[in-house]
């Protein structure tokens, strides 16, 4: 492929990233975690930017780094698809709707949270997001929960975060350590499987 063709293709990917992340920022209420169902759909099913496993890695890394989770996810996917310009397009895309809507809301609608129609619309979206998250947990869990070890890790994380209110960063760090230990314990076995995969 010629240089021109490559640049052309990259520009197209950047535009697509900007557009998809703009929609993501525009249509989700409740912050980064509420974006995961829609992000999973656009990144894995619609555009094939990430595999089932990569989208989980993206969520995990985004959660464990400081800063805004939605920006982390946008930067991760954008960079993977089209380097720095892609990261920039996805990040600006996901942040822009917030910026514009807040500016409009402050200037025009002083009593946004008093209007029953608007409050009702937001309540409807939040209830829908609960359902979307349930479906997303099923989708994300399918390729990951392969053994009792994985199930125990998942349930322990849910208990620690939702019930004991442990910060997610500590949970992810502990999980990384447990995973390293586990891979050493089961090392001999998985090494053999690795060898078979390569053939």
């Amino acid at each position, binding site marked *: 492929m010629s240089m021109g063709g490559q640049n052309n293709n990259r520009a197209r990917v950047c535009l697509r990233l900007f557009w998809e992340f703009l*929609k993501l*920022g*525009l*249509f989700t*209420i409740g*912050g980064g*975690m509420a974006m995961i*169902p829609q992000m999973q759909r656009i990144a894995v099913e619609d555009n094939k930017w990430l595999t089932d496993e990569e989208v989980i890695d993206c*969520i995990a*890394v985004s*959660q464990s*780094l*400081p*800063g*805004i*989770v*939605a*920006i982390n996810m946008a930067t*991760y996917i954008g960079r993977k698809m089209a380097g720095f310009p892609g*990261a920039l397009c996805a*990040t600006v895309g*996901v*942040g822009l709707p*917030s*910026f514009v*809507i*807040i500016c409009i809301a*402050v200037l025009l609608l002083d009593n946004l*949270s008093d209007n*029953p*129609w608007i409050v009702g619309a937001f309540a*409807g*979206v939040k*209830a*829908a*997001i*609960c*359902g*979307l*998250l349930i*479906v997303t*947990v099923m989708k994300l*869990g399918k390729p*990951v929960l392969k053994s009792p070890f994985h199930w125990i*890790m*998942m*349930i322990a*994380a*849910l208990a620690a*975060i*939702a019930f004991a209110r442990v*910060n*997610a960063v500590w*949970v*992810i760090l502990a*999980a*990384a*350590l447990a*995973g*390293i230990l586990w891979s050493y314990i089961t090392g001999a076995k998985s090494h053999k499987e690795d060898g078979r995969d390569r053939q």
Partner: protein
Amino acid sequence: MKILLLFWVFFKIGLFGFGGGLAMLPLMYQSIQQFGLMEQAEFSNLLALSQVTPGPIAVNAATYVGLNYAGFGGAVSATIGVMLPAFIIMLIVSRMLDKYKTNRIVQGAFEGIRPVTVGLVASAMIFVSQGVLVKGSLISMSMFTGGMDYYNPIAILIMVVTVVLMLAVKARPIIVMLAMAGVGALLSGTGLMT
């Protein structure tokens, strides 16, 4: 000067805030107090507005504070400031991850992190549902003792219909959310749901 101050304050919030929007709000409150960026009464407006409008909560909050303190220029600088740390850190980290992807320790770590991420998303559902599906906290004794008043049956129905639409018809999340926004607006606007 005001615009530079906003950039610096929100850059720090973006740099030291872990866990995204809601977890960053207390840090934001401290900084706003420290630099007198906003009246205390105004902060409750910020809380309400940044959670009910679309998009990342921290970006909403930054735009709101910036606009209030220094007009449009302030909104731009606070918003860029709060987004920049996540952007820079993720660029560096994903580059490193690419490099060490095949490292055995990194692979082992992800083997532990992946199932935990599924648990993390499941707990997000619990947090989002509070104040929506039920009145107050989802995980409490009220689950058993609160009676029917504790639950919001219309919201629970919307959730169930969403799950069915997603699994049976493979509906698009955006379409489902728009439809449920319409349902919610109609029910609330006509006084059927409070």
